[in-house]
Structures are given as C-alpha cells and as structure tokens.
C-alpha cells in the first residue's frame, strides 16, 4: 500500500494538500506517481496565477501518458517548484517532500473541509483509485 501521510488532505484525483499557516502546499501522492511511472515533465502555472478547486492547474507527463493536475483549493499561486523543470523525476523520488508542485494562498476556507482525510484517501486507493 502506497504511503499516505496522516497530516495531509487529499483530492479524488490524487493530489495532496498541506496546511502551512495561511498557505497550502500541493503535490501528487505516492500512489499517483506509482501509477504514472517515470515522470518526465511537469507543466505548472506561473506565480500569481489563479487556480480553482477541482479545476485543472497543470499537466504531468510520464513516459507514455499525460495527466491533468487538479487544484485542491482555490486561490493565488505564491510559489512554484522550479526544480521540477530540470528534475521532474523528483516527483517519483519524493512526492511528499522535494517533489511538491505549488504553494497556494487560498481564497476561501470552506474548501479545505471538502478534501479527503488520509483515511478516506486510503479507502479510495484500496478500491482501485477511482
């Protein structure tokens, strides 16, 4: 079973979200990177861009597939992981750490509670991830 840290929240599309004071850090889960295989490219928005919860914010490419990335919360992008441009494989190696993608300053608080808990996400992937 893929690693699902307890202190994070999750989307049904396999992104994780981490509360850091007023901000939310976003990445994809260990399960997601396992399913994708070797990540070769990550396309992320620019700092200052607006993202919307459950809407597409970028694209992750593995060797033979391209998948959309979905924002866990709405808000403004305040940081982007520039390292992934040169080292996209970081997403595979350390999905919850150095493989983070965005930091968002959320525009509404209510969305946080809509996200899956670690336990709910574990159940989701136990059922095959859909």
């Amino acid at each position, binding site marked *: 079973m893929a690693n699902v840290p307890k202190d994070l929240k999750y989307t049904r599309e396999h992104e994780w979200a981490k509360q850091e004071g007023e901000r939310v850090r976003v990445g994809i889960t260990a399960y997601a990177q396992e399913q994708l295989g070797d990540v*070769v*490219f990550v396309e992320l928005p620019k700092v200052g861009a607006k993202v919307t919860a459950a809407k597409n914010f970028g*694209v992750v490419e*593995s*060797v033979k*597939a*391209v998948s959309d990335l979905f924002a866990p919360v709405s808000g403004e992008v305040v940081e982007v992981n520039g390292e992934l441009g040169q080292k996209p494989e970081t997403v595979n190696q350390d999905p919850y750490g150095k493989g983070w993608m965005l930091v968002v300053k959320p525009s509404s608080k209510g969305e946080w509670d809509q996200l899956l808990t670690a336990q709910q996400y574990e159940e989701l992937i136990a059922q095959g991830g859909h």
Partner: protein
Amino acid sequence: MPSRYIANTPDEQKRMLGTLGAGSIEDLLVKIPPKARLGRPLGLTPALAETDLIRHMTALAGKNANAESHVSFLGAGSYDHYIPSPINHMILRGEFFTAYTPYQPEASQGTLRTIYEYQTMIAELTGMDVANASIYDGASSLAEAALMAHAVTDRREIVLSRAVHPLYKRVTATYCEGPGLRLRDVAAPEGVTDLAAARQLVNAKTAALVVQTPNFYGCLEDVAAAAETAHAAGALLVVVADPVNLGVLEGPGKLGADIVVGEGQGLGVPVGFGGPNLGVFAAKNELVRRMPGRLVGATVDRDGKRGFVLTLQTREQHIRRAKATSNICTNVALCALMATIYLATLGRRGLVRVGELSTAKAHYAAERLAKVPGVSLRFAAPFFKEFMLKLPKAPDRVIPRLAKQGFLAGVPLKTFDRALADSLLVAVTEKRTKAEIDAFAAALEKAVA
C-alpha cells in the same frame, strides 16, 4: 465481366457472397433507395489501350506550361532551383518511397535516420536548437507557429507583417479561428516591415510578432530589430525563412528568432503545381514541449548501439489529446527526404554557391529589367533572389504574351493586393543564364511597348 482493376476473381466473389448468404452483389445493395442509385453504367468513353492512353495523357500534359517547357521566373514561395539527379534515384528506392512517417516507426531505422539528419541540417541552417520532421508546407508551418506561440505565452494576439506571404496568412487565419486568436497587421509600405508601427501594436497581449525574410516582396527584413521589438513586450519572434537561402543569409535563430518556419521546396523538391511542399519548423530548445509535429531522436539500445526513435510524443495529440498544441501527427516524409539528399549532395559549399548565384543573377536581372522603358523596381529596399517590378501595362496582359515566347514572367500581385495591381513578382534562381535573362528583358520590352 471481370475487371482488370478489381483484384478478386468472379470465383472468389461467389465464395464471399456465399459466406454472406447473398446471391449476388446486387443483393447487397437492396437497402439503398432506387432513386439514390444511378441505374445505368457510368457515361465513360471506352477504355483506351495503354499506348493510346499514354499518348492521350502526354498530349493533355503538353498543354501545361511548366519549368521544363518554359524559362521560369516564378517564385512567391515556390522556386525553380536545380534538382541534382541523385535525389530522384534515391527516393525511388523501395525502402524510402513513402509519403508518411512510418507507423511502428522504430522498425524503420533507415527512415528515422534520414529524418534525424534532416532535422539536424534544418536546425543548423536556421540557427535553432531543434527542428521537427517537417509539416505540410510553409503556410501550415506558420499557422502552427502561431498556435505554438499562443500555447507558450498564453497570449491571444499574433502581429503579422503585411510583407508575410498572403496565402500563409490566410491559412494562419483559418487555424486561429478555432482558438479565437486575433491577427493584427503591420504595414510594409516601402517593401519592408514598418517596425515603428510594429512597436505600437506589440504589447502584453501579443503572443508573437511574425516577419518573413526575404519577405513576400523579396526584400530583406531587419530580423534583429524585430526580435528586440517582440522580446521587449515578452512576445516571441516567429521568422518565416527559405532554408535554401540560408547558406548565404544568417540563420534567423542567430538573430533572435524563437521559432523559424518556412517553405523548404527549394531544397530539391520540384515546383509541381502548388505541391507537395515541405513545411520547415524549428524552435529554441526551451520551447520544444510545445512544438508541433513528429520529432526523431537519437539514442542507444540496451547493447549500447546507436538507434533512432520518435521522441517527446507526449506533446502530440494521440497522447496529450485536447491539450496538444497541434493535431498534426504526420510529416511530408518524402519531401523531407528530398531535402536531406539535396543538402547532403550539395554540401556546405554547394548551398552557399546556390545562394550566391541566385542573388547575383537576381540583381543582374533586376538591373537589366528596370532599364526596359516604363518598367521600374517597385521598392528600393535590399532584396535577395526575388524582386517586384512595376509595369506600364497590366501584368495580366503582359504575362500571356511572354508565355507565348517561352517565358513564365512572374507572379502578378493583383490577386493578393489591389494596390499592387501594376506589379509583377520576379524570382531568379541559379538556373537562369545570362542569355535567358537578356532574352527575357528583350521580350518584356516588346510586351510592354
């Protein structure tokens, strides 16, 4: 009656019908309403014997004026450059003779290798990092570049010089209609793009500034200044260039272009009747993820031996689906092969020589033709192998007279721009001789008198 053009025999047809449980082919068609059916044989003339057919077709083809039957000064994107004989010999080989990028491409290492060589040579000529396996023609290359600039910058306006080929612009307008991109025009009143006017139009909404050099009128553009204008606003510079000229002219990539596109027909592809052509497409490395088209890469197999693969396919629509920059999933492989053999045959020195001879002969022709009474050069700007003449009589009347004397005089500009109704676009390649140019000048003198 069995036909020589239908592969299965009456016996085989009977067996297939038996399997289907049908008595005759007619039985298969009963669902088609009678009024939708012809009900009689097609009104074709009786079949000719092969020798008669060839005689007939040769007679029909003989009614065409072409670059073999006439001395051609036609250009406007399609040029009568010399085609070395190894090209025809090589492309007819069974291993090569296909119009397509192969499916299951890695099984065709030879084809992939020639495409790889093609990409390498185009990248070198254009001064860019990476070139694709080719696109249909110059027009679709430019249209794809506009979409790519939009994808890279997330901006919605394309600013085009009026001296960009008008047909390329029309194709670009068609491609841009779907995503709703706005095309804006910059004037080129003296034969070259008015860059001061461009600076007024290029702003934070601009995805790309597009110039062509030599442009549609044959004149050379200041690519470095255009690059500065585009980049100052955070836009890309797209340059349309003819690779056959790039043995002499600087690669636009060296002058600041972000994307270089163009018509590669001059690299050993016959003028045909408008095609098939060769769409050249090259870009900077950092933009490669948004580049359209097939891309061949070199790699090593598990034994460490060199091999070739289609690479970065996640850019393409069969994987990236709706988010792909482009929906092109093929290339003009045979024309790209012609260009590869052309460049390999000529080599560096040969290509430089083609450029030098073309421009020298074009300048001789311009000087000679401008001395014909009533005829003048439309623009004073420096040109390369093509120039615009202003005629004292309507080009539509002059051209047929010259054709009767064996000259394809040039492209009349009325259909492209009413303001240029008195003008003729004349192209001169290395193939033209002094005698041909002198004879053309004499014939023009009579035709406009």
